[in-house]
């Protein structure tokens, strides 16, 4: 009986509880990533996975008696900044893709062999002049 109580207490300590929560978030994000096709949702799913990783890291760092591990916290801080950078870039890409194709969904399957490939080394191609030009991209609705 005493042993059971100890196990429960051990399990409910933040050093184990939060890592478990992190693992659940990681799995949840993975589930969402597979299930949802909208790219914004996929990006959210990846962010949730990332938060799961950070939760495991911080939870693990908070185990034990003393103050939490500052290295783990520093790593998490770095990780959060990396995550926001990647998210910002991903969102910019999604907007660009939507402008070109008309939807923010990843096209399934291998690349279309007939899809024209623009070649930036040729004369006729010039730097993207802005929305007016790019909105004329071809439509590849599924």
């Amino acid at each position, binding site marked *: 009986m005493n042993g059971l109580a100890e196990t429960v207490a051990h399990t409910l300590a933040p050093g184990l509880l939060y890592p478990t929560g992190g693992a659940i978030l990681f799995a949840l994000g993975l*589930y969402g990533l597979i299930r*949802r096709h909208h790219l914004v949702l996929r990006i959210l799913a990846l962010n949730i996975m990332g938060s799961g990783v950070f939760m495991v890291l911080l939870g*693990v760092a908070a185990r034990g008696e003393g103050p939490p591990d500052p290295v783990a*916290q520093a790593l998490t801080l770095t990780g959060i900044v*990396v995550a926001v950078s990647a*998210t910002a870039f991903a969102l910019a890409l999604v907007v660009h893709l939507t402008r070109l194709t008309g939807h923010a969904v990843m096209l399934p399957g291998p690349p279309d062999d007939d899809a024209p490939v623009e070649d930036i080394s040729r004369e006729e191609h010039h730097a993207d002049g802005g929305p007016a030009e790019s909105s004329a991209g071809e439509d590849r609705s599924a």
Partner: protein
Amino acid sequence: MNALLVLFDLVLLAGIVGVAWRCLASTDLFRAVVLFITFGLLLALAWVRLEAPDIALAEAAIGAGITGALLLVTLERLRSIMAERRSGRPHSPPPDPTGPHALLRALHDPLPEHRTFLPALSFALVVGGLLVTALWHQPQSVGLEPVVDAHMDVSGVDHPITAVLLNFRAYDTFLELAIVLIALLGAWSLGRHDLIPARPAPGPILPGTLRLLVPVAVVTGVYVLWAGSHAPGGAFQAGAILGAAGILLVLARPRQLPMAPAGPLRLGISAGVALFLLVGLYGLAAGHGFLGYAEAWAYPLIILIEVAATLSIALTLVALFVAGRPAGDDT
């Protein structure tokens, strides 16, 4: 006391997981994004509970705040693109009788999501289960806390996290700054920036509030930066706060972006990495190793790097919000 805390932990975790679940299960993008911001705020609470106030600060400012702003402006951009395509007339004002969300819903998945249910569920369960098993079997490790503690007196700062970030593992931090910069370079390479799809808010309320809030934000940012050497805070949190202020300014005048001219802007966004690198090279030349400091110089150098980094991060975050490269960059 302990039981209460456990209860708090359980409720908080349940809330976090629940919000994450609702966010991912949402059929409405706007709702998902709002739930995600909530998720970030709850996470910040969890970080406080895990004795990580620095991370909580960063999560609230960066994870929830900046990410939230980026997500919302993305939704708005998607909406306006869809509206343009619908109307077939570029740059026409979006038709709005049905409200923004019908269109967003139209963006939705043409693919049969139901087919992925079982594989996704089993896969996630297996991964999660294995992870939990591994975590529960982990012995308690000492970690690096004692090592960091033993070196605090030679680190030049009093706050262990700042010591790790800017001294012991300065290389990581340098690369982190680089990643922020690369994300911006990537976004800029996609094309020039659009108009931000927000209409200027009429009336004096917003400008008036901003006149109050922006100075406060600047002061707060500087304070957080300065505090970082001995207490929770530092360049990233400060940069995020200043960046948020910048985003507010951008939003207040979406039609005339208060962007700096190209040359100074480029210098500004790369100032953090450039200065960091110079200091690192100095360390290499002076025999302290690449990215190393002489003990006596550690504090001023760290502060110098942090100031530059804060400015660069703030500027970069605003630029990421605007997304495309400024027109001046091409001339």
